[in-house]
């Protein structure tokens, strides 16, 4: 009965979304305020209905109702409760239901928070949002319905893929979708603005918090996925330039560009049509990501079994939205007014360069990801594009961007003095140089690139500090006065500095791992030792262990550093009897400066009878933890920026001409 209620609510949500689309797109054309007001109610109703639907599916998972095919295929009564619940979105059907639920939540939030939006713009935004919702709900109802029943009811389920029974991956999809789907709001605003034929500072101010929230969510989602791959797959790496990873990186890069270009629209009224285009592209890349992941057209190490019919359906949706939006853009964008002028050296120009480099890097990733598909279609040849391609394209494009980051927030709007700005950054430059030189003389191996990388990372972090110091005029007046200024600094300024410092921390991590990671694969017998990095691992042996729904061989390693015991590592080889699937649980010992990482492989007969040898793979990854810390710091920066009064209070009344928007304390966001 409960699954039927969920099914029914899902179909109702489809109908409501269709109505919301009609009201939102025709209401403003008719100028009917009541029709327009109804779109908000439709958006709220949609959330309620989809919540009911999602709750019904969750209930079916919790009580292990195996008469529902989806539960039967992806759950088991012996599974821990956490994974019964996260199993709801650990499969294709449930994940798409979560996708449309999050979409509806974003739509309703626009309706709820957007009380200061002009009626017609709000109705149109909700109309476009409703259209996306209607199309995807139709997809769920027709091609991936999670509520279909099975008869006769099986006694038990076939279990969730054990690799997915993990906290890192359990929460990866909701955050990732928060990002993908959050970008739909920017998309809807762009489409609505094109229909209205007006983009102004207020528009940018409304869009930016949504883009920022989506960006933060996407960052968390990607970081969780990468973290999961790092500790769960046992390959010792966190990023493989795999198509599924690239699918999430592309919208992230486009969203990053969008965040920055929206600042220019908000503050200077320039780059309007470019920003609208970016909003369209960012969501289009999210849809492309959904398509690539859900259709399985590309060979991916993260691929799951897929159904080609669904791939075609999503491809259709993709073409409809991207084609439709770009056509709308081509038709309407020329009517947008040109914005303010700026000199080649100015904050605006810096943000333009940021945008161009981010877009170029997105293009490089896109080419590398889709090229195998195109080549196979054209010549039938099967190829793959791996890390060497991305290292030789993405890295050279992104490096100049990293070098320019500290300059951006220091440049004045409209016209800036390049030399003076550079002089203000001398402290950061010296710090970078010192770190680079130290690295050059301390690190063995490939020192020049590593040293340059560490110097760039230092440059970014120090640059962020210099920016704050400059804002409060540190050392150029009484200290107390600077402290007072520090208190008065707008949160958006803190957000910028912290997020940019986070990029620096991330670069530290990436450079450290890329330049300094060590890997050893050895056959070991109990009592033997290996050295990895500064650590010495002693293999103590393997014992049997059991968990709630698995059994495991658990290896024990004593970790010594400089002769002193610093801890134990216990990697496992688990076997899940229900899914008949083994998994590898790496053991990782983290300090803030490095990870030592051990994986237990297969046993084999030892040198003499009765002995067993185990394949052991050990890694030492210097600075690895900083990769995650950098992501956390970036997200922290965006949250602080999001809490800025300017965005919370919302935009000023619409009547003011765009260019006279008050500038708060010379702050950027």
């Amino acid at each position, binding site marked *: 009965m409960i699954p039927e209620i969920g099914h029914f609510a899902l179909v109702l949500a489809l109908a409501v979304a269709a109505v919301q689309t009609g009201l939102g797109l025709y209401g403003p054309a008719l100028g009917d305020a009541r029709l327009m007001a109804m779109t908000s109610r439709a958006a709220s109703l949609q959330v309620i209905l989809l919540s009911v639907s999602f709750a019904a599916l969750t209930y079916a998972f919790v009580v292990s109702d195996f008469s529902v095919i989806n539960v039967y295929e992806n759950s088991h009564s012996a599974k821990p409760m956490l994974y019964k619940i996260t199993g709801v979105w650990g499969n294709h059907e449930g994940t798409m239901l979560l996708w449309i639920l999050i979409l509806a939540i974003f739509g309703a939030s626009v309706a709820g928070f957007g009380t200061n939006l002009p009626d017609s713009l709000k109705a149109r935004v909700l109309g476009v949002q409703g259209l996306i919702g209607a199309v995807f709900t139709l997809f769920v109802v027709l091609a991936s319905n999670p509520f279909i029943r099975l008869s006769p009811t099986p006694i038990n389920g076939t279990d969730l893929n054990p690799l997915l029974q993990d906290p890192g991956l359990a929460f990866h999809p909701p955050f990732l979708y928060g990002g993908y789907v959050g970008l739909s709001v920017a998309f809807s605003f762009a489409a609505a603005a094109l229909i209205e034929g007006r983009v102004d500072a207020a528009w940018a101010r409304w869009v930016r918090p949504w883009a920022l929230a989506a960006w933060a969510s996407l960052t968390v989602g990607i970081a969780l996925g990468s973290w999961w791959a790092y500790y769960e797959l046992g390959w010792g790496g966190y990023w493989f330039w795999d198509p599924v990873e690239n699918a999430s990186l592309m919208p992230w890069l486009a969203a990053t560009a969008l965040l920055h270009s929206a600042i220019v629209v908000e503050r200077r009224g320039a780059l309007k049509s470019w920003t609208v285009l970016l909003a369209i592209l960012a969501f289009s890349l999210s849809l492309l990501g959904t398509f690539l992941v859900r259709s399985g057209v590309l060979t991916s190490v993260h691929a799951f079994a897929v159904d080609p019919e669904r791939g075609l359906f999503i491809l259709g949706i993709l073409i409809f939205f991207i084609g439709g939006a770009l056509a709308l853009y081509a038709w309407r964008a020329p009517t947008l007014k040109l914005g303010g002028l700026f000199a080649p050296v100015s904050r605006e120009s810096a943000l333009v360069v940021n945008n161009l480099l981010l877009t170029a890097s997105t293009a490089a990733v896109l080419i590398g990801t889709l*090229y195998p598909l195109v080549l196979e279609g054209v010549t039938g040849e099967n190829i793959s594009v791996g890390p*060497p391609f991305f290292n030789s394209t993405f890295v050279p494009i992104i490096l100049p961007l990293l070098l320019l980051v500290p300059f951006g927030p220091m440049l004045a709007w409209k016209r800036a003095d390049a030399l003076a700005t550079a002089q203000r950054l001398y402290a950061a430059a010296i710090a970078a140089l010192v770190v680079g030189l130290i690295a050059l003389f301390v690190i063995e191996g490939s020192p020049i690139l590593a040293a340059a990388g560490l110097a760039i990372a230092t440059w970014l972090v120090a640059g962020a500090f210099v920016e704050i110091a400059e804002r409060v005029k540190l050392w150029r007046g009484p200290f107390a006065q600077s402290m007072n200024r520090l208190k008065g600094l707008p949160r958006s300024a803190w957000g910028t500095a912290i997020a940019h410092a986070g990029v620096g921390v991330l670069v530290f991590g990436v450079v450290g791992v890329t330049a300094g990671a060590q890997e050893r694969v050895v056959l070991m017998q109990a009592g033997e030792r290996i050295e990895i990095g500064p650590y010495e691992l002693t293999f103590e042996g393997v014992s049997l262990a059991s968990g709630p729904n698995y059994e495991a061989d658990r290896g024990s390693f004593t970790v010594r550093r400089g002769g002193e015991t610093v801890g134990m590592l216990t990697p496992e080889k688990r076997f899940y009897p229900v899914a008949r699937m083994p998994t590898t649980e790496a053991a990782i010992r983290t300090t803030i400066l490095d990870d030592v990482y051990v994986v237990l492989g297969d046993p084999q007969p030892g040198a003499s009878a009765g002995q067993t040898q185990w394949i052991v793979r050990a890694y030492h990854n210097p600075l690895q933890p900083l990769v995650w810390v950098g992501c956390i710091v970036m997200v922290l920066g965006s949250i602080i920026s999001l809490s800025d009064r300017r965005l919370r209070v919302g935009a000023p009344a619409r009547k003011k001409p765009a260019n006279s928007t008050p500038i708060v304390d010379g702050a950027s966001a």
Partner: protein
Amino acid sequence: MARPKRTRTRKSYRAAFIGTAVLVLGAAVLLALSALEDTVVFFYSPTDVAEKGVPTGEYARIGGLVVDGSVAKDGAVTIFSVTDTQNSIQVAYGGILPDLFREGQGIVAEGEFEPTGRFAASRVLAKHDENYMPPEVADALKASGQWKEATE
């Protein structure tokens, strides 16, 4: 006369913006396409290798089903064969095999051919999901006429 002049500057500014954008994006695309020439990894099915010879000295991908009973250990090195049911290739791999590696499973291996025709894999990919078949392997099986639609 100030106004038309202002419009012209705005237009020329827009042209400059579009010009730079096209230039930067064009450069990125060129960079990407030239990088593709050097970094693309080709996939060979066992039948391709049997028909066209062994492509030695080239980083390549191969794939197929792991032949039943072919998996053997030589120290830390695992030796096994993959097949598209017509032909097969022997593979040697010195790392830890993925969890879902087992006989009869479709896998993809990356590495280089040794002059003997054996494939020295530096990476073996099996998927996170036991129902998954790498597209290349599916194609290779289809090409050899052995493809059966999945039971789902």
